[in-house]
């Protein structure tokens, strides 16, 4: 699924739009607050859905090459998250929906 379809499918706002946003594809969705699980994942073209609002989310996302992160449950985005999303050129969305609602609306991608 093209990343640009996400705002059409769920109510969310852009925190950071990556430079290749319009052409980026995501094929796997990972719903977790455990960064250890993200690091253990073998999947590629990943969309990470999490309610963990910390720098480590973006750092972990960069390490495994996550294309986009959706921060759920209306969690406040700390400024350093935005800075890191820009630095790593990762698309970052924020939504008031829960992780389960996001996953349901996005389907299996």
């Amino acid at each position, binding site marked *: 699924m093209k990343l640009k379809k996400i705002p059409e499918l769920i109510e969310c706002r852009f925190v950071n739009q990556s430079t290749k946003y319009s052409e980026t594809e995501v094929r796997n969705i990972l719903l977790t*607050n*455990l*960064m*250890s*699980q993200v*690091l*253990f994942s073998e999947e590629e073209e990943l969309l990470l859905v999490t309610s*963990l609002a*910390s*720098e*480590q*989310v973006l*750092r*972990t996302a*960069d*390490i*495994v*090459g996550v294309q986009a992160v959706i921060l759920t449950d209306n969690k406040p985005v700390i400024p350093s998250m935005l800075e890191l999303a820009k630095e*790593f050129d990762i698309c970052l969305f924020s939504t008031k929906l829960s992780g389960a609602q996001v996953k349901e609306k996005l389907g299996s991608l």
Partner: protein
Amino acid sequence: MIDIPINTEKAPSLISELVLKLKVRDVMNKGVITATKNTTLRTIQRLMKEKRITGVPITATEKLLGVISMDDIVKALDCGYIEEKAEKHMTTDLIVLEDDMPLSFAISYFDKFKFGRFPVVDKRRNLVGMVTRGDIISNLLVEVTKEVDELEKKIEKPETKEVNLKHNEYKIAKYDFANAGKPSNEIKRILKEAGLDPKLLRRIAITSYELEMNIVVHTLGGSLIVNLNDDYIEIMAKDPGPGIADVEKALQEGFSTADDWIRSLGFGAGMGLPNVKRVSDEFEIKSKIGQGTTVRSRIYLRSQGGKNENK
């Protein structure tokens, strides 16, 4: 007629310096189309049309005698003397610029006399060029762009201490979650810029990050040591304690001694060391209570995405 949009008194210092530094010869048009005093106004009119110019200097062996302007041609057509020679109708009361005058002087002349062009002469009063407002503006733009480029080069770049991954040691502090991950993100960036295969890159980055987080979460602090050569990258995590009581258990997925606080930060799920072992071509761990732990991971650069089966 376009104005030169420069107030030489109030212009920014860069422009002020440029208009003083540049000479008229730097902006003038050197390939001047001229005619002689015996050339007819009709010929000059055709010349103007063909060359798309609005004034033709009349010269004799390079000496400037006068100028025939578009106005002179219009008047000649109106009054019926278009076939007459230039000598009789050219403007001889000329205001000229010298080629070594500063550009600021030329700009003040354009403002003062409202002419569209000025002939440019050298010290011997020979015609060497023509200058228009357009010449000044376009040349100034080129010069400003050059100056800006030079200034940008001079601006001190933020200090980027480039890391040499052939051998580098990162100090990692206990519970320093604010900085945790920075070395690994840096290692990944450097290797990515070096054009490493993305799958290989991911394995190296995971190894580095997991070992780094292990030091942050489970030790008193330690070092992440990176050694890179043409064949492999070796990442070693060293700490002085407290050491792992049961190494075999620590390598089982899901076994962890991390508390709830660490887990609330997204770590401590007991997957770190097994994950490093999983992505490494060679993996070694030595630990002793009270003496600390050393974990060594080696990834061969020819192994590409998958693990190197020969190792």
